[in-house]
Each structure stands twice: as structure tokens, then as C-alpha cells.
């Protein structure tokens, strides 16, 4: 397994990040960048020239992760050459939130199940219900296949996200990569580092991922009250107080982050389902706990007894970036420190992460506000 990483900014143009040049042989190029840059056809053409035999898969971001740094308004392309692993690709479009489950199911059905060990998925970040997408994938995949991935981002603007396979297509896209063979070792971990605070709040009115009322009060009012002077920054500033959701009878907690607000009916749209009757708590974060959380996630993604992974895909929530601000690089560094210097890092700041609830579990769930890491190595 070999990695070749390139990075593009307006100021510097394309620059190599890693030295080993296996560009001609790479089968997969993972591309992350800001919406504006991705929309320029010249850039994607350049990537196809850089990796002429690779399928190009990528999405727009709320920040690009390259090596141990975080960038805004840039473009990163990571060429991956698998020596002993076969890949399959699939993509589909989603008309509306309601089509999310079907999109997941269609993708899962499009991939051959024979020898399939892992699915990596990138989804539109604003028009897809991540919970339903994960459920759809689970519904059609063998229980032995884990799914990781994330929802595309759009800085802190929440206006338009892009997902593409080889070329940018019309419509809201979800793309998936299937990994085949018994030589590939894929680990994953997902940790947040947020703390719940304040009272438990009953979700008294919600529909799928749209929440209207907590404890009988409009949810938007609650957020506006908590944010005070920062309420005008909604929905982005809402990310400072994600919801912690008790699931499986309170045995486990999922984090839900805000995608949109509706001033008319006082509702808020979250990246995944918030079922009526469940209990939610507000969460807050501090830099240290988030950085620790990222390191936890990295540790979780290490496969016990396996050598350090060759590549780690970091999908971290835009909400973390808003809290960490100038210190955002620290969480990527802590991942690099944990995985070791030989692991190449790429990834992006997302509107949602998809990963099983634990390292020994396969069933994918939507997460928010986490650092979700997928590590790749070949025996």
C-alpha cells in the first residue's frame, strides 16, 4: 500500500506533501476541498492528470485535513495504491431527506457482497438524513461489513455541499467505496470529548431529524436563550451546544448537531434523527477535552497487534473546529502523535460522521461532533 498526497492553495498551487511517487498506479484518489475550488473544473482535471488511473472520490468540506494540518479554502488529493485489495465504487442521488434510507440501501445493493470487508461512504451534507442513510446501508449489507464515512461540509455556511465520483454531477450525491479482500486491515474509531450539562430534556415534538419542541418549548427559543449575543450566528453557533441523545434505553448516547434552523416554526434540523420521547441534554466542550477525544478516537482505530496504519482518514465535525478555532490543528496533531509519524493523514471537517458505535461493532450509526477515524493498512 502506497500513498501520494498533493495539496493546492490559491497562493501556492499544487504541492507534493509526501515524497513517494506512485501516481501512475494508484487506483483511488481521495479529494477534499472547499465548494468554490471544487467547482472549478480545472482543478479536477488536474487531479485526473496527477492520478490518471485512479477513480476520484471526494467532497466539499468545512476544512481540509492534510498531514497534521488543517486548512480552509484549499484542495487536497491523496492517491492510494492498494497492492492486495480490490475496490468497487457506487454512487446515487437523493431527491429529499425522505430518500435517505433508499439511497443507503441502493448503494449497499450496488456493491458486490462477495469478499466485501468495508464500505466507506461520503454523503451530501445538507439534504440527507445521516441516520436514515446509515440505516439504509445497514439494511442491505452483510452484518460483517462495517461502514464509516461522513457528510460533506460547507465551511460554517450550511448552504451547498458537493460529493463526487470522478466528476461533479447534478443533484445531491452519495458515493461509496467498497473494499475487498482478506489482506486489507481497516480500523475505525469515533470519539467526541464533549460534556453534557444542564437538565435532561424530553423531546416532546419531532419528526425524523426535525425537532420542534423540548419539554414543550420551541427548541429554537432554547438555543437563542443559551447563545445570547451569539444567536445571530445560528445555525453555525448552534454547533457550540450539540445535543446528546440517550439511545438504547439510555445505555448509549449519540450526539446530534444542527444543520439548519426555521425561524417560522421555531424548529431546528439536525444531521440525524432525534426521536420523539427520547431524552436530550445540551453539550459543551473545551479545547483540552476535544483534543483528548481525538486521541481516544485514534487509539480506538488502531487494530490490536497490527502495525501502524498506512493511511488514516480523519472526519471531524465542523462543531469541533468552531470550538477549537486557531487550535484546531491540535486535535489533528494528537491523532498523528497517537498513530505515529508513518501514517499519512487526510480528511475533512464534516457535517456528520458515520461509524459503528464501537470498535467491536459493525452496525453503522450517524455521529456528530466527533473525530471519526478510519485507518487503512495491508498485511
Amino acid at each position: 500500500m502506497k500513498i501520494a498526497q498533493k495539496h493546492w492553495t490559491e497562493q501556492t498551487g499544487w504541492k507534493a506533501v509526501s515524497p513517494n511517487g506512485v501516481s501512475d498506479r494508484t487506483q483511488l484518489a481521495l479529494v477534499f476541498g472547499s465548494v468554490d475550488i471544487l467547482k472549478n473544473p480545472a482543478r479536477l482535471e488536474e487531479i485526473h492528470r496527477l492520478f490518471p488511473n485512479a477513480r476520484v472520490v471526494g467532497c466539499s468540506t468545512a476544512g481540509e485535513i492534510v498531514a497534521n494540518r488543517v486548512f480552509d479554502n484549499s484542495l487536497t488529493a491523496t492517491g492510494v495504491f492498494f497492492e492486495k485489495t480490490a475496490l468497487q465504487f457506487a454512487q446515487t442521488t437523493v431527491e429529499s431527506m425522505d430518500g435517505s434510507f433508499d439511497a443507503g440501501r441502493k448503494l449497499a445493493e450496488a456493491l458486490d457482497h462477495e469478499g466485501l470487508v468495508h464500505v466507506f461512504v461520503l454523503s451530501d451534507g445538507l439534504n440527507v438524513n445521516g441516520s436514515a442513510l446509515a440505516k439504509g446501508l445497514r439494511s442491505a449489507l452483510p452484518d460483517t461489513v462495517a461502514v464509516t464515512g461522513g457528510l460533506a461540509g460547507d465551511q460554517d455556511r450550511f448552504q451547498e455541499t458537493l460529493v463526487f465520483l470522478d466528476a461533479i454531477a447534478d443533484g445531491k450525491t452519495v458515493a461509496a467505496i467498497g473494499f475487498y479482500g482478506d489482506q486489507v486491515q481497516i480500523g475505525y474509531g469515533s470519539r467526541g470529548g464533549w460534556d453534557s450539562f444542564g437538565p435532561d430534556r424530553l423531546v416532546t415534538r419531532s419528526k425524523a431529524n426535525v425537532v420542534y419542541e423540548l419539554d414543550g418549548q420551541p427548541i429554537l427559543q432554547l438555543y437563542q436563550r443559551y447563545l445570547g449575543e451569539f444567536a445571530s450566528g445560528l445555525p453555525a453557533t448552534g454547533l457550540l451546544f450539540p445535543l446528546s441523545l440517550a439511545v438504547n434505553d439510555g445505555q448509549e448516547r449519540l450526539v446530534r448537531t444542527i444543520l439548519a434552523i426555521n425561524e417560522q416554526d421555531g424548529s431546528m434540523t439536525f444531521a440525524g434523527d432525534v426521536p420523539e420521547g427520547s431524552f436530550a441534554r445540551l453539550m459543551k466542550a473545551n479545547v483540552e477535552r476535544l483534543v483528548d477525544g481525538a486521541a481516544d478516537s485514534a487509539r480506538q482505530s488502531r487494530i490490536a497487534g497490527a502495525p501502524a496504519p498506512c493511511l488514516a482518514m480523519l472526519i471531524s465535525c465542523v462543531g469541533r473546529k468552531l470550538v477549537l478555532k486557531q487550535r484546531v490543528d491540535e486535535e489533528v496533531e494528537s491523532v498523528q502523535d497517537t498513530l505515529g509519524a508513518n501514517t499519512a493523514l487526510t480528511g475533512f471537517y464534516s457535517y456528520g460522521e458515520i461509524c459503528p458505535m464501537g470498535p467491536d461493532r459493525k452496525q453503522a450509526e450517524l455521529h456528530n461532533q466527533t473525530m471519526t477515524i478510519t485507518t487503512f493498512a495491508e498485511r
Partner: protein
Amino acid sequence: MNKLLLRQMEKFFGSGNSAPKELAPLFQAIGEAYDGFDADRRLIERSLDISSEELTQINQRLRKEVGERRQAEEKLQNSVSLLTATLESTADGILVVDRQGTVKGFNQQFAKLWRIPAALLATGDDHQLLSFVLDQLVDGQGFLDRVQQLYREPTVESNDLISFKDGRVLERYSKPQVLGREIIGRVWSFRDVTERVQAQEKQTRLLRELEQTSQRLERVNQELKDFAHVVSHDLKAPLRGIKTLAEWIVTDCGDQLPEEGREQLRLLLCRVERMHNLIDGILQYSRLGRIQEDKTPVDLNALVPEIVDLLAAPPAITITISEELPVLHCERTRITQVFQNLLSNAIKFMDKPAGRITVGCTGTEEAWTFHVADNGPGIDEKYHEKIFQLFQTLSARDQYESTGIGLTLVKKIVELYGGRVWVQSRLGEGSTFYFTLPRTQGEPHHERLQTSVAC
């Protein structure tokens, strides 16, 4: 730019503007970091304030809820104590079971009725309890079937009797126990009704015996009635023969007989006549209730004068009708017999030179009260009841021609109409016979009296 940073720059560089130009982006970043930290701090402080305020409110609400719950608990304890007292104060044995038939509660009376030893109760073992109970019953299997049926149909209420081998009978009620909308079990109550059941059985037996007796009586009655009729009828023919023969003797050889013989023949004819009247009376009496006559409107103002005419009282006796009499809806013959008998008695026994007989009537909403008053000899009070009995006469037969049937007939007829007859009299001053007739005469009287008439 951040105020703190500005002050620091003034402190170290003299003024913010004298800092090296190439360091400007660095200071910019530092300023933003300062601002960011400030903003974070403000936000966190604000959120903690709001959060603690919310928690305080929740705390107050919880405290209130705890208070309310405590009150509810006290109420509940009250209810429980009331329930326990009620359970133990009732004479019924009460058992509460859940949907599976597991014992959930009972009162002491239950244990007493079923004679369940305390040790067995203490085990709470349903199967042992049930088998102990079944052993005492006449029909254990039937009991068990019913119980199982009721567990299959939890909504059904039941009420039946259970017979014990020792002769006791328990009444068993059961009703589903409902919590909210759900049936969670069944309440059984048992009451010792041995005495009641035994009394009922005795009553039933007595009723059956009574019915048999009354059927027997009716048969005897009918026979008697027929007998009276046939006998009276058959007696009349030989009597007529005797009369005819006696008359022939008087006609053919009356003058050959000594005076004594002629007197004896006259007496013979008198006795024959009396016997004839007796038989007629008995016939009339037995015919009462046998022969159905239609009820018609009878104007007594017309009927009573007709009867008076027919009776042809001696001129010394004046008969007056004192009031306007009503129109009755009744059998004409019967009411005629009543007035005829009363008036003929008054005429017959009149002992005053100026006899006065008055017929009158008063009325209430329910009934008419008629009277026939005379200034005759009067009747000793000790005979006031007796005179209404069959064949009772107060004077010697030879003094007045009387069968002793008339008043009995009056009494029967009046009673047939649901009325009453009695006499008020003082010896030597006269008598007043009263009788009442209800304005409406129901059929039941008729039925009842048909039987009594035959007696």
C-alpha cells in the same frame, strides 16, 4: 483590535502603530485568539447561569412534586386502611387473585368459611390451597371447571352456589378487578347461605304440599257442589208426591177424619211446604257462582219498588225509600235476591202494629253502603254473627216460616261483589241491615268466592 493586546503593544512598543509591520498578521491572530477566549468564556458563563437557573426551577418543581406525592401516599395509606377495615368487617369471605389465579389477598372470614388452616395459608401455594378447597366440596370437578372457565373469560361476573360435603352452602360472587382499563385479576366473595337455602327448601316443600291440599279440596268441593244440586233436585220429586198424596187424603176423606187427624195432615202439608222451601233455598245457594249471568246496568230506583210490590206487605207496614238509589252494574237476579231477602225478613218478622221499613244508601268514592232498617223485634247482639250462618233461625219454625238460608245468601252475594254485610240492632227497637258494594268489582273476588260459595 483586542483591548488587552492593544495595551500590551503600547506597553512593549510605545504604541500599537510602532510594532514591526511584518508582525501584523501575528498580532492579528493573537488578537483573534484573545477575542475567541473571551467569547468562549462569556458563552460558557452564560450557559452555566442559565443551566443552573433551569436546574433550580426543576429542583423546585421536584420538591413540589415530592410534596404532592407524599400527600397522595397519605391518601393511599388511608384508602388501604379503610379497605383493610372494610375487608375484615364484612361477614363475607373475600379472596383476591391475579389473572393466573395466584392469591393476592384475602380476609380472615375467607379462611374461616373455607376452614383453611393458618399454616396452609402461610405457604401461599395456590395448588395446595385449591386441592384443600376441592376436597370439601360435593362437586369438586364442577367447581374447578367453573373457576377455570372464569379465568379464560376475565370480563365475566359470576354468581352461583357451592355445596359442601358437610351440608353447608356458600354463595359465590366474582367480579373482575380492573386497574385503569386493564383487568388485572378477580375478586371472589363467599357468603354462608346454608340457613337461607334450607329455609327456601322448606318453603318450597310446604308450598308443594299446600298446592296438593288445595287441589284435593277443590275436587271435594266440586263433588259436594254436585251432590247438593243433585240431592236437592232429586228430593223435590218425592216431596211433591207426598204433598199431592196428602192433599188427596184431605180432599177425598178429610171429612171422615177426626179433627185431630185433619190438624195433623195440615201440619204435614206445612212441613212439606217448609221442606220444599229449604230445598229451593239450597238449590239457589248452590246455583250461586255456578250459573253465569251477564252484568247489566240496574237502576235500583226502579228495582227496589218492583220488589216491594212483589212482596205485597200487609197494609200496616210502610216501606219507604229514603234516598235516591244508584244505578249498579251487576247481575240483576243477584241484587234482586239481596233486597228481596232483607225486605221479606223485615216484613216477615214485623211485630209492631205500625211497621216502618226504610231502604237507603250512602256513598263514598270507593263503595256504596245500603241499609234496610225496620222497627221490628230487633236481634240480640249475641246473634248478630250467627244469623248469617246457614240454617240458623232465631224463632221457632212454627212461629215464622223461615228456612235460615236467606241471610246466608245475602252474605254470599255481597261478598261475591267484594262487599260486607252486618247488622245493627237493639232488642225490641228494630234492626238495620247494612251492606256495602264497591263501585268497581274486580274479577278476583268473583274467583275467590266461587270456591267459598261451594263450601
